């Protein structure tokens, strides 16, 4: 059909929030390929979502009050007794996480409105310290780079980290240092970028310098980076 059905804001929002069934998400992706306006709206709405999140990441704390001893104290007593047992029982739950297949696919499929040619620019945004997500980002980055290399098409990938996602690029903590170095050596068209605000905050918390992986770039503000990239026609994918 040459007339993709109209996709309204409600459906776009559901798409952004990962609330659509696979089938519905595919319809949206199909529509995005042929409708630049829709792509623009998608960017606007996902940007609003990101701005709201960032603006409340660190709400002001209330003026100091007496510490809440009761809850903490009782909790601490219980911890001493059963920590060992619980670690085994509950450890696995951290691993369950819904794969954002649709968004990654989107990055692969979408034809960027203002590029319109063979060049694709994709920004992958990691904001949580979740090894599963980080691994997905690296897997997808490698797939994208490899695919475009074989097809002799141009792609630029930027992996942006902020908040707790910064861990991915910490020389002293990243579980993926070797993998990132390998990608950097094999491909020139991939950048790994850390948010300076997140880095400053972490350094202040730890009271020491935090080294980043060699070859990482630093951006003064991750949100500004996202906005700028989106304006330049980058596909933005939040993991």
């Amino acid at each position: 059909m040459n007339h993709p059905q109209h996709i309204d804001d409600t459906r776009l929002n559901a798409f952004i929030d990962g609330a659509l069934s696979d089938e519905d998400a595919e319809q949206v992706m199909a529509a995005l390929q042929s409708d630049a306006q829709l792509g623009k709206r998608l960017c606007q709405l996902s940007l609003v979502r990101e701005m709201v999140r960032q603006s409340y990441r660190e709400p002001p704390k209330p003026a100091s009050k007496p510490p809440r001893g009761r809850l903490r104290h009782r909790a601490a007593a219980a911890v001493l007794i059963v920590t060992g047992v619980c670690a085994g029982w509950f450890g696995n739950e951290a691993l369950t996480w819904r794969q954002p297949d649709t968004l990654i696919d989107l990055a692969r499929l979408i034809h960027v409105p203002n590029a319109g040619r063979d060049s694709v620019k994709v920004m992958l945004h990691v904001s949580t310290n979740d090894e599963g997500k980080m691994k997905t980002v690296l897997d997808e980055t490698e797939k994208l780079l490899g695919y475009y290399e074989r097809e002799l098409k141009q792609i630029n990938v930027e992996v942006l980290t902020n908040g707790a996602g910064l861990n991915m690029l910490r020389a002293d903590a990243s579980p993926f240092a070797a993998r990132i170095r390998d990608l950097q050596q094999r491909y020139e068209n991939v950048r790994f970028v850390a948010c300076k605000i997140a880095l400053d905050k972490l350094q202040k918390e730890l009271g020491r310098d935090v080294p980043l992986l060699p070859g990482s770039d630093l951006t003064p503000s991750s949100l500004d980076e996202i906005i700028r990239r989106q304006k330049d026609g980058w596909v933005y994918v939040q993991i």
Partner: protein
Amino acid sequence: MNPLAALCRSHEFRRQLEEGRPRLYRIAYAWTHNAALADDLVQQTMERALRKSRHLQDLRAMPAWLAAILTNCWRDHLRTQRPMEDIADYDFEADADPAVEHERLDRQTRVRRAVANLPDAQREVLSLVDLGEHSYAEVARMLHIPIGTVMSRLSRARAALAVVLAGTVHESNTVNLRRIK
């Protein structure tokens, strides 16, 4: 449940309760834009949650369960306190931190203002989805409204913010052109 399992559950319950605090506080702050009030609401939520801990069957459902309690605390507050409040009491400014870029604070303030100006019902849904990271279905259950209503309120909220914040986005770009590589 054997005693060890019960103890373990109790420990895990408390751990998750404490872990849930920052998220609840973000939501409460986005509803009230008042740090002291947000803190009170979260504290009430924690206390109610402790009292009712046996009602929660599955600990995995805890984030949504806590958000539902927070919603009730907020509603109770609105019923009793609303007329006393004034938008002039809202504190939009973050903790003073000279190291933080001026532009970011400025944008943050504008985003918070825009969120504060949304109708209550829209702000409630927006906060639960974006800050609480709850699914549409969870929010629908929490607020006792159909899922379609969740979606339409969220859409209206984001559309309104997109209009208000269009200028913010534009200005950010201007700032960025000056960025030193």
